[in-house]
């Protein structure tokens, strides 16, 4: 055996856990910090990207009533329901159905990702307050 394995938990393991928690907290704060400043469901825009290209942009707050749109990507089809309160994938023919299980997203910075279809739906604030990039 090449290296000796320490089998019992060591207090120093908490350092690793602390680094992970700090990284998660810092990233979460960066991603959703601005979202907390906005009111859920108001002034939202849904940006739909297929294969990395923006293909649709829906002003949710301007919708008079819920609207359903269909998107195709990499041989898969997603049916997305947009309403003033948010966006939700209501059906998809992808194998894992993670996008459907994500449910309703209703705040800037939140997103639905369908990896098999290479489709992402990201909510941004109407004033562009959504997260575009994280630095550092």
């Amino acid at each position: 055996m090449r290296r000796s394995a320490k089998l019992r938990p060591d207090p120093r393991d908490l350092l690793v856990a602390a680094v992970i928690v700090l990284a998660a907290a810092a990233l979460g704060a960066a991603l959703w910090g601005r979202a907390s400043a906005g009111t859920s469901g108001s002034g939202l825009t849904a940006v739909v990207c297929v294969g990395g290209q923006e293909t649709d942009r829906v002003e949710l707050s301007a919708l008079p009533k819920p609207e359903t749109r269909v998107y195709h990507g990499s041989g898969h089809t997603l049916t997305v329901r947009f309403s003033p309160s948010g966006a939700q994938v209501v059906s998809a023919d992808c194998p894992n159905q993670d996008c459907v299980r994500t449910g309703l997203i209703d705040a800037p910075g939140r997103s639905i990702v369908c990896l098999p279809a290479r489709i992402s739906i990201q909510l941004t604030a109407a004033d562009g307050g959504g997260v575009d990039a994280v630095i550092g």
Partner: protein
Amino acid sequence: MKTTRKLTLCAVLTALALALSYFESFFPLTAVIPLPGIKLGLANLVTVFALYALGPGQALLILVARCLLGAMFAGNLSALLFSLLGGLTALGVMSVLSLCPGLSLYGVSMGGAAAHNCGQVAAAMLVLGGAAPLAYLPVLLAVSLLTGTLTGFLASLLFRALDRAQFKRS
């Protein structure tokens, strides 16, 4: 360890990793936490074991073989990028952490689980061509504390069992 014995052990561990990947597909974490790519990461147990028992070189060979064969058997070559990036990142981080004095299998496994998720999110960003998957990373990192602890616990059980079976451990 003789070359033949080492080769055989690598083959067995590769098969075990593939079996564990298949096994955990029956218990999808995504049913509880609907995030793409979230899973228990039981195959990482084999990487941890190989890292300590055989060294990073053999662990790398087992990892690459597992990723290639897994993608072939699943008929899903697009998954190869995800498993390779996640696995390689995890192995790299665990190799470094395993050299840190004092860290146990638990700490090393937690670091590996977190790194695996970072690698997979990077793969998702490459595939989708945007930063949308980054929104999942904070939750994935938090979950990696649990999955990493589970892997560390299972790895320690494995090494204890091997000790009892009077396998050599230096």
